Each structure stands twice: as structure tokens, then as C-alpha cells.
């Protein structure tokens, strides 16, 4: 599972659109199309190079969710998007 201090960014070979709170991701090299709704689409938008921990804190600020639960869910969801080839972990500076 990805570490809380790890940073993630969107893969350069992914095209995406967020429409009415849902995200459509096209993973070009896999020729795969993914639809993400609700909080998942928001997490996708937050994956701009910030840490997993920062993404989880942003969700806590916006949704009625405990910090521990938010962090666990973000780590699992981001890990899934990395497996799909939609996100890449950034090398630490």
C-alpha cells in the first residue's frame, strides 16, 4: 500500500474530464476507459503532486469522515488508480 507521505500525479498518458462530479479517464496505452463517481472524482482532481496525507486531509475538511478512515480509503483508491496506470507515484526530492 502506498505510504501517506508519498506524492502522486496523473500519468501523462491519461486524458480525463470531470462532468457533474463524475470523472471519465482514458488510459491511452491500455486503451481503457474508466468512470469514477462521487468522492473518487474529487480524489482524482486532488492528485496533482500533493501527498496522500494531504489528499486525505482535504477530504476530511470537505466530507463528514474521520481522518483515519479517509487516509485508509485514499491509500486504497490511489493504489487502485496506480495499478490501472492512471496515476504515478512521484520520486521523493
Amino acid at each position, binding site marked *: 500500500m502506498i505510504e501517506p507521505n508519498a506524492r502522486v500525479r496523473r500519468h*501523462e*498518458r*491519461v*486524458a*480525463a*474530464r*470531470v*462532468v*457533474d462530479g*463524475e*470523472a*471519465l479517464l*482514458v488510459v*491511452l496505452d491500455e486503451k481503457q*476507459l474508466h*468512470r469514477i*463517481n462521487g468522492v473518487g472524482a474529487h480524489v482524482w482532481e486532488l492528485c496533482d503532486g500533493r501527498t496522500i496525507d494531504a489528499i486525505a486531509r482535504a477530504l476530511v475538511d470537505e466530507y463528514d469522515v474521520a481522518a483515519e478512515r479517509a487516509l485508509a480509503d485514499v491509500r486504497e483508491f490511489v493504489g487502485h488508480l496506480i495499478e490501472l496506470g492512471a496515476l504515478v507515484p512521484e520520486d521523493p526530492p
Partner: protein
Amino acid sequence: MLSPPSAGRTGGARRLRSGRCRFAFGGVVFELLMNDVGPDVQLDEPMGRFCADATAAPTVAHVSCTLQHDASLPPQVGGDALWMARDGDTLRVGSRQIQVELQALGAGRYRGRARLASSNQALEAVLRGVAAALVEAEGGLVLHACGLELDGRAVLFVGPSGVGKSTATCLAEAGHCFAYDHVAVFEHGSGPVAWGLPGGSAAAAPRSSHAHLPLSRILRIRRGQDQPRLQRCDGAAALFVIRESVESAEPSQRGEQARLSAAMRLATRVEVGELWTVLGHSLTGLLREAGAQR
């Protein structure tokens, strides 16, 4: 003043001889200079069914292209896949049988040269490849779809191979099929236009005499259980239906962003939905009823 898109009748068999010829195909006006392609190369059935008179057809691009026969390219191949690439104002389309290079001149006009094998198959590949590339370059899309003409407008059935797109055209017995597997879609005048492209197996449904029609709906086919039903899609669901059916041989990230933008524009201009079909149950009433409610 812009006029509404109209339906266009096909020209039937179209034989192209040496010299200059001009016609519309897939939303593009082609002006071909064919001085060196050999006497055997000609545009014939079934390609002629998808062509129309260039003066009256709704189009998004105009290309002047010199065709040159290249004996080093194989005249016949099985399943020749096209590729496309864009580099600034230069657009390249290729396959094992063709090599095309076009320059964008602005305002939807292109000029270029094509080297091709000496065969009908290679000439058809030039037309299909160039039409697909230019429609996409001008903000349109090529969809994997069956096209049905119903009451003078186009309904596109989309979905993965084997889902029942051709069957759906047969179940809409008041309609006529104008495309079996590929359709170019683009904005023209006051609304989107669907232009049938060759390919796919002929459906059992009667054939339409139109090459292009005003586009009214895009419906993702699903297999139902009891009665056919239709459910409208909005937002990301509509975008998914359209993008899922897009065909493109241009793999760049920039190209994909453009395709998503085109799909989003299209989703706001036509009705998008999911259609559950059931064998033995007509779709005509359902399609007309949904059309009347719009």
C-alpha cells in the same frame, strides 16, 4: 445564414478514371489528381454508396491530393490497420498499402500527396484514412456504430462488437440502415451530421439510399429481458457512451483530449441513451415515441 443539415442521397457506383475528380466522402470534399495510379484503380461499389455530390453535401474539410502509384507497396493485404500522426500543420496517415502526407492550409483546407499500392483496396484505404483523420482534426469523431435512418434522421446504435447493433437495426423495421459499422459525426450548419463509412457486414435491415443524415440520437445497445426500453444518459454517462464508441488511430494525449472535448460537445447536441433490445420486439414505436417527447 446557416441552413439546416439535409439528408444526402448517395451517388451509387462511382468509377474514378485517370485525371482529376471531385466528390464528398465521410464529411470531406476530395479533389484527387490521379495521373499515375494505373488503369485498375477505381472507386467502385460498395464505396460509391458512401459518396455524395461535393457541391451539396455537408462537409468539414476540403482536401486536394495527388495520388501516386508505388509498386513497392502490396496491392492486397488482409486487415490493413491505419495509423495517423499529427506534427504541427502536417498530418500523416499510413498503412502497409498507403502513405499520405497532408498540410493544413487553414479553414478546414488541406493539400497533400498520397503514395499507394495499385488496387481498389489501397484507394479505399486512402479515402477512409484521410476522411477519419480530417474529421477528427476538424473537431468531429468517427464512431464504431450502426447507422439507422428513421423518419429522415440518423439514430446511431453503439456498443462493443457482438452486443447486437445490427440486430437492433433489424428490430426497427420502419428504418433503413445507412452504415453497418463506422460513422463519421461532425457539426455542420445548425446541427450534427452522421455520414456512413464503409465496413462491417451488411445487416438484414433494408438499406438506406442516404450517405449522410442529420443526427438525432446515439444509443448504447444492451440486451434486455422482457420488453425493450430506453433510458436517457446525461453528464459523464453520456460522455462514456460516446467515448466508448470512438475509433481513432491517433494515440497522442493531445489527440485524446480533443476527442473528449468533441464527445462532450456532441453529448450536448444530441440525445444519448441506453437501449435494451429484446428479440422479437419491435423498436420502431419506442424510438418514435422517444423522438416525439424531445
